[in-house]
């Protein structure tokens, strides 16, 4: 059904929110000849792919310090390389430091990883290439499902059936052992998954972190295996030129903006949307906080589902059951971000310069991760958080003056909902804990800190509109992915309101800064408006 709206409006589509997915969607709509307006409440587009001054003379990636693997089709269709997007040729996927000063590196080349693992465990060195390959194959299969909107359950379209058949045959094409792995691994606890595959605790923890990143799950929580598979799926769709964007996530956002403008998308920043306008059960535009009304044939929301439906829509436009379900859509943020301005390059015991230029994880074993999670269950932040950090100034010296550096750290668990206290009171104490943790691995680290910025889940909600501070716009759990993201039957970017679509990470596939949700939504919206 096509939204029936007055043909007078200047725009065919309005995209709310200029994050990576909003930009991707808008740019692709523009490319399809759809007159598109993108409105962003902040002064800059990019959303979580932002960069800012964290201390005088120091700039850092404000939130995300790495993009998800950028989707190949997004780069190609939008020719992002024309807008300055380049990738670094890095050999390291991620490294992990042990408190005893040893280090472990996962290279993009599994043979090289295996060579390094030999120092830890012969068994793991032998098992690694096969495990890596298996994960890659499973990722490839799920990745296939990531490339378009999930099928409708009630009224599957011929296109859906075709893609379902294709997926089924791809599933049958997997080695039998992998078919079973796919069925077993998703609902498993990631700790079980990695423990049955490898024996080195540091390696287990490094891998398991993928399963709990940003989630309200510990490694022993069932279902955490899923997120690890989703991460593998993202990798299978990555731009082959490299997974690390030169200049950081903000460079991805800039390229997307360039592409959007080239395709005629109008971008208005500093314009917060107050309401999605609906007449006759059909979205017909938006009202800005300033009171200005802008009409369009379709509205595409790049903000998270809770905010979209519970704040921007009026309740009487939604079926009560739908509103009730969305109010229980889980978006409990657990990730905090700490940016450090450093007078010198910190040295971490065991870490080479090449390792420092990539992502580094600090979590010695599975129990450490689980204990960090325990705190979150009781509304406290971890006394010993697990950390992933990068030193972006190594690749991008313009972020700090000569000799100085910035370090960007994710710290988990920092639950949005604290018990008996508030984040405004706990922000700096959390920063101290992160500093102290880094100090353990890099003696003297704290004395080189000249500035620090701590962003709690509450800050992510206030500053970037992420409900609950959830970085994925809603937890990536078994009941909130694929056809169930955000809600069963609404996985195809459509909503109960005709002409209102979702293009945020709260829609399929919804995993990190890949542009995937935006691209999938654009295809649906373009078909609808055609």
């Amino acid at each position, binding site marked *: 059904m096509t939204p029936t709206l007055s043909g007078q409006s200047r725009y065919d589509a309005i995209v709310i929110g200029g994050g990576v997915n909003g930009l991707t969607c808008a740019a692709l709509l523009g490319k399809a000849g759809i007159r598109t307006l993108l409105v962003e409440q902040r002064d800059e587009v990019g959303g979580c792919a932002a960069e800012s001054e964290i201390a005088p003379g120091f700039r850092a990636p404000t939130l995300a310090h790495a993009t998800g693997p950028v989707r190949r089709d997004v780069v190609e269709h939008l020719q992002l390389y024309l807008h300055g997007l380049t990738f670094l040729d890095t050999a390291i996927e991620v490294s992990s430091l042990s408190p005893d000063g040893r280090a472990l590196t996962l290279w993009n080349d599994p043979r090289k990883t295996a060579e390094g693992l030999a120092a830890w465990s012969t068994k793991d060195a032998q098992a690694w290439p096969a495990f890596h390959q298996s994960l890659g194959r499973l990722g490839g299969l799920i990745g296939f499902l990531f490339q378009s909107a999930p099928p409708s359950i009630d009224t599957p379209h011929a296109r859906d059936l075709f893609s379902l058949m294709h997926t089924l045959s791809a599933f049958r094409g997997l080695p039998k052992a992998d*078919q079973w792995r796919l069925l077993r691994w998703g609902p498993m606890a990631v700790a079980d998954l990695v423990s049955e595959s490898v024996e080195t605790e540091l390696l287990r923890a490094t891998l398991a972190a993928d399963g709990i990143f940003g989630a309200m799950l510990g490694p022993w*929580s069932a*279902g955490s295996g899923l997120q690890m598979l989703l991460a593998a799926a993202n990798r299978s769709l990555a731009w082959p030129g490299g997974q690390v964007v030169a200049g950081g996530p903000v460079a991805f956002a800039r390229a997307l903006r360039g592409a959007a403008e080239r395709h005629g998308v109008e971008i208005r920043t500093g314009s917060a949307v107050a309401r999605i306008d609906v007449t006759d059960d059909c979205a017909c535009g938006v009202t800005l906080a300033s009171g200005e009304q802008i009409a369009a044939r379709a509205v595409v929301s790049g903000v998270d589902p809770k905010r979209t439906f519970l704040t921007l829509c009026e309740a009487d436009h939604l079926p009560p059951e739908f509103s009730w379900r969305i109010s*229980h859509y889980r978006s409990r943020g657990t990730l905090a971000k700490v940016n450090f301005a450093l007078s010198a390059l910190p040295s971490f015991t065991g870490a080479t310069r090449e390792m420092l230029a990539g992502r580094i994880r600090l979590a010695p074993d599975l*129990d450490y991760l689980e204990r960090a999670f325990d705190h979150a269950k*009781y509304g406290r932040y971890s006394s010993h958080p697990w950390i992933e950090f990068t030193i972006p100034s190594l690749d991008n010296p313009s972020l700090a003056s000569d000799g100085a550096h910035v370090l960007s750290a994710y710290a988990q668990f920092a639950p949005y909902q604290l018990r008996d206290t508030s984040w405004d009171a706990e922000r700096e104490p959390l920063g101290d804990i992160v500093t102290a943790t880094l100090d353990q691995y890099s003696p003297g680290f704290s004395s080189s800190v000249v500035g620090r910025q701590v962003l709690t889940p509450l800050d992510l909600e206030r500053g970037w509109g992420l409900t609950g501070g959830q970085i994925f716009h809603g937890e990536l759990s*078994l009941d909130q992915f694929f056809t169930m993201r955000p809600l069963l039957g609404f996985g195809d970017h459509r909503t109960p309101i005709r002409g209102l679509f979702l293009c945020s990470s709260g829609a399929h596939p919804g995993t990190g800064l890949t542009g995937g949700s935006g691209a999938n939504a654009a295809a649906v919206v373009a078909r609808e408006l055609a």
Partner: protein
Amino acid sequence: MKYDAIVIGGGHNGLTCAAYLARAGRKVLVLERRHVVGGAAVTEEVFPGFQFSVCSYVVSLLRPEIIRELDLPRHGMELLPLDGTMTPMPNGDYLWRVNDHDQTRRDIARHSRLDAEAYDEYGKAMVEMGRFAKPIMGMLPPDPTSLDPRGLLELLGMGKRFRDMRFHDKVNQVQLLTMSAVDFLDQWFETDVLKATMSASGIIGTFLGVRSPGTAYVLLHHYMGEIDGAFRSWGLSRGGTGAVSNAIAAAAVEFGAEIRTNAPVAQILSKNGRATGVALANGDEIHASVVVSSVDPNLTFLKFMNERDLPSDFVDAVKRYKYRGSSGKVNLALDALPNFTCLPGAGPHLRGAISISPSIDYMERAYDDAKYGKFSSRPYMDMVIPSLTDPSVAPAGKHVMSCFVQYAPYHLKDGVWDDARREAFGDAVIDTIAEYAPNIKDIILHRQVLTPLDIEREFGLTEGNIFQGELTLEQLFFLRPVPGYAQYATPVERLYMCGSATHPGGGIMGAPGRNAATRILKDGRR
């Protein structure tokens, strides 16, 4: 003497399978290691005059078709209703849910009016879910990796039934299968103690916490618990759970099956990839055309067989299969009734289950202990006092009390279960009860403490897992017990499985035994 079928293990599933095979005219022999049949569903006079359902203590999921087809009431089985669940709280309050819906509603309303209203909605939703799930219990799980169109059709059939449900039920169904019990309940209820008590059923027999995804679906079991067709009732068996086993055994014998106790199996005999019989511990060899194992995969394949006679990927999968017993059992012989501070005196609240699950945090803390290799210092408990409903199990005026206790991990971080640790565990249980019923310490005549290690040794359940393997999503349905062998058959021709380690899993349900018999008869083995 040659049999058509030998069933290893005389637990309720082994007996059920034997009864169905005998009913179909097969010559069946059941071999039980212990001196009594029943396996974990057994009644024993542990202390003179006191009869205990030593392990399994309530009956709820026993399939009505089994009761009917084997005519169990005629063989002496009588199920007595277990009315409700009472949860004492540390503040002196309580939550008391009974089978009388209005009374339950009133009690929940004391805690929250909203929850009392939601309870109706929730109940209706769960009944719908139960209707969807019930047929799955009796299914031979299809193999999704097989190209066999029959399996595919069955999966499509399930898909169609799913599609035909209302939106509300569809969402519920998906959530039940994937969510954590707490998250699922959070959608309906706000009262902590209510959510804690309800979610407790989701963790029984698993090494998961109530917030772990995959624990919600067990909530359904309570609504599928049918006794004589009545939805939602849980019951005690007159004479203990052993009486259920005895009734099934009597039915099997009436159909012509032979049961031998004190007959431990040492080996499953096979030749050229085909099972031919068993060798007993005393060296006797007994031959049969079909061997059916009701014991768990660890014993069946790794103890009774030689790994070399099995495909190596199958052996790997069997070794990966998770047991991780997480619960213990404390059986008490009491001189008088416990006196709960929240509801003093003897009363109907003692006739149902008594649940120590005062808050979600309490449940989580109990789990935290176990995660790091300790038994819970303040465990979750589900207790019943069967002597109130069935006075025959204790001397006049005295009582037996059965306490299911979780978590008690099989693997302890600081050593192994020994006498000192067993007693320390027993003390933690009694101390916990004493917080709610202070007179408990004065009325205990005898106490039997079963750790997971005891359960393994005495009842042959590997790592003390009461369900012959964890009931987690990756070990359910077509993945139970191992991928590719969910249809009761094994890589060894004429060797079958029929225990709780097969679909649909544990509890005094009988479904695995009945499903396995269906499969064996379908294969036409003689």
